[in-house]
């Protein structure tokens, strides 16, 4: 097994701190830019649309700049692990399929996508026999269909399968 590699740090704590603070700083800069474009001063009829967000952006940039500097100066966190390789793998095994699932919703509707998503997890990570996989994944989607479409009358995205079954 590659036990040794899995326990190695994928990212260090300090790197993560710097990336997040830098990203927030960037967002703050965007807010300031757009507020200035809209007008961040005092107009004829009171504060302009960008007045309030301008200061928000300013504080956002200032506080993330402080966080950035603190992260760079911090020696104690320098070698601390943010996430180990093995942990990151586990996180990505959920995150990537989730992103694909969300993309699938737009295509096939939420019920089919959910059934595929649950089935994928049970088969791939849980190694369940196919009949259990089918029962849980289809049962789950049918239950949600009953709860949302029938009982609470909240329509969820549907796709070609529902059209085929005449459930639209």
């Amino acid at each position, binding site marked *: 097994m590659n036990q040794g590699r899995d326990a190695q740090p994928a990212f260090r704590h300090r790197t993560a701190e710097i990336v997040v603070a830098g990203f927030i700083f960037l967002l703050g800069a965007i*807010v300031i830019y757009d507020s200035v474009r*809209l007008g961040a001063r005092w107009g004829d009829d009171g504060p302009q649309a960008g007045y309030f967000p301008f200061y928000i952006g300013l504080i*956002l940039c200032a506080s993330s700049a*402080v966080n950035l500097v603190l992260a760079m100066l911090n020696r104690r966190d320098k070698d601390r692990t943010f996430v180990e390789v093995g942990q990151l793998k*586990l996180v990505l095994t959920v*995150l990537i399929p989730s992103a694909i699932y969300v993309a699938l919703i737009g295509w096939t509707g939420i019920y089919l996508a959910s059934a595929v998503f*649950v089935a994928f997890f049970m088969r791939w990570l849980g190694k369940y026999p196919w009949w259990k996989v089918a029962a849980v994944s289809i049962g789950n989607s049918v239950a949600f269909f009953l709860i949302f479409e029938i009982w609470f009358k909240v329509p969820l995205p549907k796709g070609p399968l529902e059209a085929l079954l005449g459930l639209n």
Partner: protein
Amino acid sequence: MDEVQSLIQGFVVALSFKNLALMFVGIILGVIIGVLPGLGGANGVAILLPLTFSMAQTPGGTTSAIILLSCIYWGALFGGAITSILFNIPGEPWSVATTFDGYPLGQQGRAGNALTAAFTSSFVGALIAVIVITFLSPVVARFALEFGPPEFFAVYLLTFCAFVGMSKEPAFKTLASMMLGFALAAVGTDPVTGALRLTFGSTAMLSGFDFLVAVIGLFGIGEILITLEEGLAFKGAAAKINLRVVLDTWKELPRYWLTSLRSAAVGCFMGIVPGGATPASFMSYGVARRFSPNGDKFGTGQVEGVVAPETAAHAAGTSALLPMLTLGVPGSPTAAVLLGGLLIWGLQPGPLLFIEQKDFVWGLIASMYLGNIAGLVVVLTCVPAFAAILRIPFSVIAPIIIVICAIGSYTVHNSNFDVWMMVVFGVAGYAFKKLSYPLAPLVLAIVLGDRAEASFRQAMLFSQGDMTVFFSNRLVGTMTGLALLLLFWPLLSWLLRRLRASA
């Protein structure tokens, strides 16, 4: 004695068959949500909020809807204790302190005692908080009727500065996360001038970011990603509660009345000023350890060490509704979600609610008394069933929770864009949590951003841009001064420490 009369009327509203049934449904759903990893009070209520849209349209329906949602909240508060004691996994952040003594008790085969103590003291904490709400909120509401825009802005300022002054997280991270919330709230159409802000020509951004989606992503998806890191196996103590154990524990509990009272006071205070249930539970655990004669045995399985954090967490969670109802300023993320519900149903939270929607307010307050009694009964009798939920393998429950989160985000605005945003917020929540950026101020800023801005601009219009309006009378001046004191508190305490160190 107006309050007592209003309360009796509230009981009449809450005691209808339909509302009582909803109470039990809410509690059971809430405990399930509290037990499951990735689902908690805030995002559980957020996901179920769209289901109440049609319910709220019927006459008296808003009261039923708030009873359902608030009971989910109480249920989630109860549920957190189950996983802490049996599995050493805090189902909710506020039950972390419960694991310190609760899990050792469970390992010693006294899980039943620990659970009974936790549930009972949760109940006591909530009860004290509801009594506080009953008698204090009409006073606060009457007081707040006099508020103008400068006063309201001062209240918002106080709320947000309290986060900076009182949170355990680094002050500048709290500030950054809060401002990020305000920036997200500003996206979309400017409510005053109608100008488009920060949309950069994208139609999906026109309606702005909904805080419900942020709550589901940050707390739901983010939490699942963090749980994943720690591995997938749950190993737990067996849960058995019988009448003997319950009665034995109840005999023991009155001994800790002083701890209960102290913890409830800490909890109520932390809930009303937005400290939240989590710091309240830690704080009262610490206080109890210092003052208890058995303080040095804390951490080895003391019933008192379960009583203190649970009482405080429930008192804080419950009293967080006081500022939400009277001022429209929620004291916790879950209270913020409930506030969002009120707005969607067409109710304006704030002092006028106590005049215009008497049935609603007092029905809700009465349901808090009843809901917590119902909660105590449900959790004491059904613990084994709830604990069994945690034995469902992660590879089955995780995708189902993600599906539930996706459905919840979609139903907010019927938009796929929101589901994508949920994933983005999930990644952000994961990173923020690991780097100890607090999430509660972010969520509260998204909720209150628009209204804080509106009251700020109105106040500025009043005074023609003169900032001294926030010090123009004694009331607003006190609040602004207090807010600034809290804002600079981390700096002041740092300076004080330095001075003392050098002296």
